[in-house]
């Protein structure tokens, strides 16, 4: 790519669109980003960042086993994602080891199992694409599965939007007024596992946790309203995906890393300049000039 092509913003944006794989990558990554961004508001408010990291890493053996058995990889991922959380809960309850330690050792154990399985099960699994994502090489069956899972998660989150908000905010009250907290807990975990599965196609297992927490954290700095937080989170996730893919196309960079870096930069921007909660509090700066 010649640098002069940047001179027009128009061609910067439209040139990649002439490639089929780029159109698909942009669309699918935006969809995945939207789903992860939606979920992200709940995870950051619930304080489940570490849990998100754990679940997303733990799905690794599930993906490998599912591929080997010819099952939809979402099924395997879901099984191991929820399984890891159950195991974390069990070990925490039955031992004196502290929770963050348990989380750390369980998910690395699962992750290691996944890596060992990949090396043992000689199939056409591409370890690199699982670890670092491959939004540019997404297959048609993956597209169908991603759309299906994304819709499922969006529908579930939309239906139980308010209940999940209440669950994150005050589970005790939820329980007191007869709302099934147990169900909501596992609903959120299920959505987390599913989002991790679709997210890993974009940015890979190692970085998928960024998709699940960074947009929410950015939005949290920008608003005091839950609904706005969800919208900002989704938008910032989509924008990051688009920026990441374009930048990786023009500069020949790793796509997954670029997407996450874009998210990080947006977060840093909010961290510095958010009107109320930023370090420099833009509102005050502007007020000073008036």
């Amino acid at each position, binding site marked *: 790519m010649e640098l002069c092509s940047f001179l027009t913003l128009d061609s910067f944006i439209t040139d990649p669109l002439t490639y089929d794989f780029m159109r698909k990558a942009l669309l699918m990554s935006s969809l995945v980003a939207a789903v992860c961004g939606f979920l992200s508001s709940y995870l950051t*408010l619930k304080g489940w960042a570490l849990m998100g990291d754990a679940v997303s890493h733990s799905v690794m053996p599930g993906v490998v086993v599912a591929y080997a058995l010819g099952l939809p990889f979402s099924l395997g991922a879901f099984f191991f994602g929820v399984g890891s959380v159950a195991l974390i809960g069990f070990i925490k*309850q039955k031992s004196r080891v502290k929770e963050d330690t348990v989380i750390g050792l369980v998910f690395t154990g699962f992750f290691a199992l996944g890596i060992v399985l990949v090396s043992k099960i000689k199939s056409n699994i591409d370890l690199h694409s699982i670890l670092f994502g491959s939004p540019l090489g997404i297959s048609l069956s993956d597209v169908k599965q991603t759309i299906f899972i994304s819709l499922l998660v969006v529908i579930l989150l939309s*239906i139980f939007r*308010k*209940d999940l*908000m*209440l669950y*994150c*905010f*005050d*589970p*005790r*009250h*939820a*329980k*007191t*007024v*007869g*709302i099934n907290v147990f169900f909501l807990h596992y609903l959120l975990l299920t959505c987390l596992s599913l989002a991790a599965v679709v997210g890993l196609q974009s940015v890979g297992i190692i970085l998928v946790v960024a998709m699940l927490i960074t947009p929410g954290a950015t939005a*949290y700095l920008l*608003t*005091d*309203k*839950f609904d*706005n*937080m969800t919208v900002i989170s989704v938008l910032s996730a989509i924008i990051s995906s688009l920026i990441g893919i374009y930048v990786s196309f023009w500069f020949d960079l790793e796509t997954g890393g670029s997407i996450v870096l874009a998210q990080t930069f947006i977060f840093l921007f909010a961290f510095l300049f958010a009107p109320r909660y930023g370090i420099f509090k833009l509102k005050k700066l502007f007020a000073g000039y008036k």
Partner: protein
Amino acid sequence: MESINYQNFRIDAENICVDYNGKVALYDANLRLKPGQICGLVGMNGAGKTTFFNALTGFVNISKGKIRINGESVRSAQKDQTIAYVPQNEGIDSQFPISVWDVVMMGRYGSMNIFRCPRESDVQAVKDAIERVDLTDHLSTPIGNLSGGQRKRTFLARAIAQRASILLLDEPFSGVDIRTEKLISELFIQFKNEGKTILLSTHDMIHVREFCDLVLLINKTVVAYGETSEVFTPENITTTFGGISPDFLFGPES
């Protein structure tokens, strides 16, 4: 043989035990409260006050004993919105991006449809509740921007909007301003007249003498229970607080 009519009791907890993974938090605790009664729950930190609340709301399961709410199970009390819990200010995330209106509306969730779409009656209940705690000027204020007292009133409004007949309040007077304290005491009198039953935990001995008809002193189990005038003695308080005299704990003025 005379049979007790359990329907008369709003709360009837009989020999309840709660343990967390084998660690006993509360054992053989009893409590019976009728409509219109206000009961103070007094004990040290870790004496099982919050556990007692959790057992009554069904947030933790009891390992032994029986709890009847209006003669029925805790589960059906949850379904009927019978119990409202007003948390300690420290017990909630004050930075959660949510407004006063939204918090109070949560009091109505249990009686709404699955999408939690507010009906006209819900909106009215929320409006009325917010008016009763004098926060009408702060409908859309994020709870993070409220004072401790205003936040406490927000959660009281949620309990009012829920139209619960039993109110459980965890340290209702801690960290609140004089105005809120006065408003809460007025509300207590109104609640009492409406026949609501109130169980409140407090560290403040003056508040117990002022508001509570009954007092329940606990230290993992019931140390003493009965009319405040009879039970709330320096000896009982000393026993409850593990031998430390109330003067030392609360200063000579109490």
